[in-house]
């Protein structure tokens, strides 16, 4: 097994982790600040991808598609927040779960009605369509590197926003202690809309960025949503930093699990047993990681006891 192989697998894990972070960052803030369980977060991811794919098909420009997809996610996010979710902040989690579950059904079906059930195609921008030679013996798709780059950029911008601006500090304080925001006497409705819009924007961005490498299809949001939940719980609810660490951990665990578990099991099991057991084992890695972390720190890696 070459170093290039291991390195490539690490890059794969990092890239998956950064995508998960884009979804988890918004989700953890929404959980933390508003106490809102938002199952429909994946819908913004889906809508972003669908709008972007449509725009790309019309105009042929990736940048336009990116702007449109992210914009659509923001608009939809703010609309949903102000129209439907606002009355839910004071209600229990149960109501929130049910309403956002209903939203998933609605958005999925509405998307199918608008775009059909066949899914859409999205291409990477022409300059990023090929692979590049990272190291001798390590070719890597350049678009995947671009995804990682965008992920890193968001990490930096988000940490600046949360760490250096007044509104960012308010958001952080509020995510850590729900009572803090109202105590500080800011316009709470505005903060909520802002945070929700930010979350929807990041989810939409993730949808647009992954669009060219996956199938843009109805239901794409749910598959990734549950991994995102694992990230949020693992990192600690309300902690963006925690989400970042957890996203990378989950991304690496998932990628490396799929890459190395079969090889590892192959060391002492028959090939037929490996092909039977390895897929099941690899798909439980991230959940075992979560269970182990919770035994040790119920509040998550960087979460606060609440």
């Amino acid at each position, binding site marked *: 097994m070459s170093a290039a192989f291991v390195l490539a697998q690490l890059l794969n894990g990092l890239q998956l982790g950064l995508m998960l972070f884009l979804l988890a960052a918004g989700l953890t803030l929404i959980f933390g600040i508003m106490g809102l369980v938002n199952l429909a977060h994946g819908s913004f991811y889906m809508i972003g991808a669908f709008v972007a794919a449509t725009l790309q098909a019309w105009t042929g420009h990736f940048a336009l598609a990116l702007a449109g997809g992210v914009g659509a996610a923001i608009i939809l996010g703010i609309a949903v927040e102000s129209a439907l979710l606002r009355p839910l902040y004071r209600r229990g989690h149960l109501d929130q779960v049910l309403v956002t579950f209903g939203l998933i059904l609605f958005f999925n079906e509405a998307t199918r009605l608008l775009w059909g059930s*066949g899914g859409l*195609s999205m291409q990477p921008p022409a300059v990023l369509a090929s692979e590049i030679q990272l190291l001798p013996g390590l070719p890597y798709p350049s678009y995947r590197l671009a995804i990682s780059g965008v992920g890193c950029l968001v990490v930096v911008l988000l940490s600046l926003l949360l760490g250096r601006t007044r509104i960012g500090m308010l958001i952080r304080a509020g995510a850590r202690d729900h009572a803090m925001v109202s105590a500080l006497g800011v316009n709470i409705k505005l903060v909520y809309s802002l945070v929700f819009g930010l979350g929807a924007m990041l989810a939409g961005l993730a949808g647009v960025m992954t669009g060219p490498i996956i199938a843009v299809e109805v239901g794409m949001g749910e598959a990734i949503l549950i991994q995102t939940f694992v990230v949020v719980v693992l990192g600690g609810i309300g902690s963006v930093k925690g989400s970042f660490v957890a996203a990378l951990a989950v991304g690496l665990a998932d990628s490396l699990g799929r890459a190395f578990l079969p090889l590892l099991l192959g060391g002492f099991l028959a090939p037929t047993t490996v092909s039977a057991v390895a*897929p099941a084992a690899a798909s439980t890695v991230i959940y075992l990681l979560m269970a182990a972390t919770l035994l040790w720190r119920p509040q998550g890696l960087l979460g606060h006891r609440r």
Partner: protein
Amino acid sequence: MRATRLVVAYATLMLLAGGAQAADHITIGYSTTLTGPLAVEGEQMVNAFSLALEHLDNKLGGLPATLVIADDQAKPQVGVQNAHRLLERDKADLLAGMLLSNVTEAILNAVLPEGAAVIASGGVPAPYAGKDCSRNFISTFWNTDTPYEQIGLYLKRQGIKRPYVIGLNVQPGRDALNGFKLGMGGEMAGETYTRVDQSEFASELTDIRRVAPDAVVWFNPGGTGIAFLKQYVQAGLINSVPLYGMTIQTDESKFPALGDAAIGVKSVGNWSPELDNDSNRHFVAAYRAKYGRLPTTLGAMAYDNALLIDAAVRAVGGDLSDKAKLVAAARRADFASVRGKIRFNNNNVPIQNFYLNVVEKGPDGVLRNKLAATVASEVSDPHAKDCPLTW
């Protein structure tokens, strides 16, 4: 007590009336998937089946036909519930359609013991192609391992030595790859199964690069298959390691989502829009005129499904009471399949030809599958020998 006597009287009446009696009407209970990611395939099936009915003046074997469609949501339990509703409430004379083999298996488990007839066009569950084959069940399609066995035989002839197999971790996926190994023989360079909701294949593709096989054989007919194919192309592997799968993974219904990533992909199937026979030309032209695009393999199978029922009902003279007789008539039926003349094996699965298709972009800029070669002729599926039925 009175009720019992009434029933007895009714039964006697029926016995007296008995024997062959032509029905004046036929109801088809059509079960397929119309929600979720597979809806796109289900819609093709319904389109093609309806088109066939149109061509037959809404009659099957001369009987005015009613089509009752049910969506199984790709769930076995919903499929079973639908089957009961179609048979008991809607009084369907037979069930048709069927898409996913695991849903079909659940439905067959539930309705065959009750004596219902199923004349389907979907994937045949391996047990029902083999030891559990039934006199009441027939399909116009295949069981998934058959095309993959043919891919294996084909690649062996092409001199491939170290193939890498990657399949969706579902039963048809395991059947398919086992079928391939059966045809290919020998060792695989690698074997991987992927999660049903997995849309990120970087790990697996990196592994393929490490192993450097001389061909990759894939099974992933759902939405995640589209992701796999796109990532395979983006990783540059498509130029260095040829990729083979079955045609329904890369046909018309997938082109909108695949885009140009599909160009050059090779696949093996039992049908092509380019097959040169009267029935196929008529079907393809009419489908294109009505729906604005080429039909898919599953659409073609559904069209055959309707033609097969038509021929069978005609053969039994409209007597729908004996279901086994109806299915027996179907397997012998002389019908104008879009695949040319086909016949059925003892397990009621077609003996058919297999073709190599390659996706290319036509001069009009539209993607299509080009019929490149005939891979094998008159192929029996590997399960037929396990089926105890003789005819």
